[in-house]
């Protein structure tokens, strides 16, 4: 750190000294710590929220065949007769060791099930991100270059239209045209263990396209706005006067300074790709976390609902934290604090 000499002399060995000599690290650790506290709070909220929800697993599971004795039996078997706090800490202790308990409905390990499902969801989210992030940023740059001209407007209108349609509707439209009418895409998008990589990619084409359409506009518009903001500064004018070509100015001079807000919006959208896919997964019959969660909610399989909720919350918090940290790293003023 070039500015380390200006900070108060470090007292060797003490944690305070370590942090003050590494303010960036301190900042990052602080974020991680806060994230952890937040996750803990969310776990409590989830547990209480599910507790006060109307409806009951035993009733939902037994349906029409629920007699008071059968309900009492199931509740006893699942340990639901223990006090709330005891159950919460029991569950939390398990979660800290990576054990989300067993599903009430089929007595299978939730962690194992989630492992497979989360893998599928991340696979879909990853490919949606691989397509959408470069596309959004590229389109944003093109829009800046042709600002207020026909191409800019076209990009804007199309991406806004895509975001304005609810995602289930976008999904159904894609199914209607690509799968039903033209028959060129695979539907349903079910993937399974012994599928080849190529088949997998083909299977997720439609849900991936749906997700791309949903997140594209937000990122594209933020990129455009952030870069445009920079484009009006004096140093860009200088670059222009130097005779640099337009794309070079945007990519080399403007974009790096606009990176912080872009990272933020990208991270938010990545988080959305993972946690917002519930509807898309159900429509495309994709065996990911979303569908697992919906299955569990219908039958009130609470260990699964809690685990999915917590995993989603963790993904959201981690990605936001990452955005924060990258935002700090991208900003020289924060990177080198006085």
């Amino acid at each position: 750190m070039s500015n380390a000499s200006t900070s108060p002399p470090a007292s060797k060995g003490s944690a305070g000294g370590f942090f003050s000599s590494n303010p960036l690290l301190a900042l990052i650790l602080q974020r991680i710590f806060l994230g952890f506290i937040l996750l803990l709070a969310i776990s409590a909220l989830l547990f209480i929220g599910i507790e006060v929800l109307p409806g009951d697993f035993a009733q939902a599971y037994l349906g029409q065949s629920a007699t008071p004795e059968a309900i009492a039996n199931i509740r006893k078997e699942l340990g639901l007769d223990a006090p709330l706090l005891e159950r919460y800490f029991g569950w939390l202790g398990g979660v800290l060791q990576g054990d989300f308990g067993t599903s009430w409905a089929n007595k299978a390990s939730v962690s194992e099930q989630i492992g497979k499902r989360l893998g599928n969801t991340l696979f879909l989210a990853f490919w949606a991100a691989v397509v959408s992030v470069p596309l959004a940023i590229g389109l944003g740059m093109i829009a800046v270059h042709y600002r207020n001209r026909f191409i800019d407007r076209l990009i804007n209108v199309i991406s806004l239209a895509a975001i304005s349609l609810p995602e289930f509707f976008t999904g159904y439209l894609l199914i209607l045209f690509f799968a039903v009418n033209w028959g060129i895409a695979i539907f349903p998008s079910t993937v399974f263990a012994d599928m080849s990589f190529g088949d997998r990619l083909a299977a997720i084409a439609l849900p991936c396209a749906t997700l791309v359409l949903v997140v594209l506009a937000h990122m594209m518009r933020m990129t455009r706005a952030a870069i445009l903001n920079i484009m009006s500064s004096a140093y860009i004018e200088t670059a222009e006067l130097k005779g640099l070509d337009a794309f070079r100015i945007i990519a080399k001079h403007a974009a790096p300074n606009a990176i912080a807000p872009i990272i933020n919006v990208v991270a938010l959208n990545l988080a959305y790709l993972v946690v917002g896919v519930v509807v898309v997964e159900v429509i495309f019959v994709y065996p990911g976390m979303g569908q697992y969660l919906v299955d569990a909610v219908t039958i009130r399989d609470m260990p699964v609902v809690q685990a999915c909720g917590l995993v989603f919350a963790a993904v959201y918090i981690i990605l936001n934290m990452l955005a924060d940290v990258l935002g700090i790293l991208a900003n020289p003023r924060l990177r080198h604090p006085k």
Partner: protein
Amino acid sequence: MTDELKDLGMLVARGQVSRRDFLGRAAALGLAAPLATSLLSSTVLAAGPNKGGHMKLGMNGGTSADSLDPATFASSIPFTFGRVWGETLTETSPVDGSPVPVLAESWEASPDAKSWRFKIRKGVTFHNGKEMTADDVVATLLRHSDDDAKSGALGVMKTIQGIKKDGDDGVLVTLDSGNADLPYMLSDYHLIIQPGGGVEEPAAGIGTGPYKVSVNEPGVRYAAERHEGHWREGVGHADSVEILVINDLTARMAALTSGQVHMINRVDPKTIGLLKRAPTVSIENTAGRGHYVFIMHTDKEPFLNTDLRLALKHAMNREQMVEQILRGYGTVGNDFPINAAYANFSDDIPQRTFDPDKAKFHFKKSGHDGAVLLRTSNAAFNGAEDAAVLFQQSCSQAGIQIEIKREPADGYWSNVWNVQPFCTSYWGGRPTQDQMYSVAYQTGADWNDTKWSRPAFDELLVAARAELDEARRKELYREMALMVRDDGGLILPMFNDFIAAVSKKVGGYVHDAGGEMSNGFAPIRAWLA
């Protein structure tokens, strides 16, 4: 005349005309139904089932919580997939509902119908290569009789007192009281015969069915491949069968119309018009035993009064219910829970119709004053809230005021059904009249949801159960039906159809009142043309 029928028969064979339409045309041409049926089967057989191909089904009714243990089967997909890999001792005939021998080759009963001997078929092998024996049958039946197994067939097995091997190829079943329906009861889809009774590995998915389980991903998909050397002709035509779990209706319809699956279940009557427009799809609706009901507790005010019950029964516009709630995909009910899908059904019981004058008369006679409170929720059945409003309107024509209370879907089965005196509900039906009446109309039955109790009815029920003479039995059931119809707390406006949609590439779809998707047999009975 027969030429035209033969052409039609070919169309049925190719799956382009439904069996029902064929019979309708045959009747129009003046041909008696039994003759038409035999003509149809000979034409269909002549066209021949096509062998080979990969049959795919997209179905609603499966979650990641499902297991291959037959004792746990509760929803459509485990039920249907169970038919693919497993077999039971008996099945019910799609033609008249009578029991058909499968793993049991034949059976005989003692004159009091208390003791039954089943002869077990020889030369049947499990998918693990072992031969199926009477020991496996005994072990399977014993496992499902055990309280700890939590089998869905426990209710059926409770009446069985003893199960033991009798000679090399026989199984002797003794009952605590006579029951002529035992062969029907053993067709229960939970009672798949497993090696060693499935005691060691209940969820291994090893049975004697036409296909071997190759993929088991609960809530996602199931697949099975042909079991070479399966003993039975006429089932298992495709090389392999796959069931995809598609719980979303729109996705199911899209998967079918885009040709990715060959059959789907549970088509909503509301969207059937759209699906019919697809040129590659045909709708296969089958009248089943399921019914939608309005139930009154006959032991609580104000429904203690027979006249009030009759008033409400006469105030029900059944045709309108079938037309608007089921969009025509159903049949009218007659206030007793039995229809032509059951064996020993009497079709000469007069149909009750909407009659505001009679309703007015009985209502006045009952002396009831003010509105009648009806509780409902769409949890009871799809469209129950609309059905309640229709009922309210038809009642008002008879001067009866109905107050509707919408209840939350959550907890409807524990807080409203079987608790509140008047509500909407449904029944899936049972394989036999005896089971339907025992489960919901006998004095003291847990699910007697009309709280109706008549000793004379209970006596008839027991007498009919042990009666081996079919004609006499039918007479007893007729008497019981009339008692429920005229005195019971049940208003039964409609029986709902099972609605499946099938690609035109599929041949040999058989209508079977026993359950949805050809009673679960669709993937093994049908073939790919």
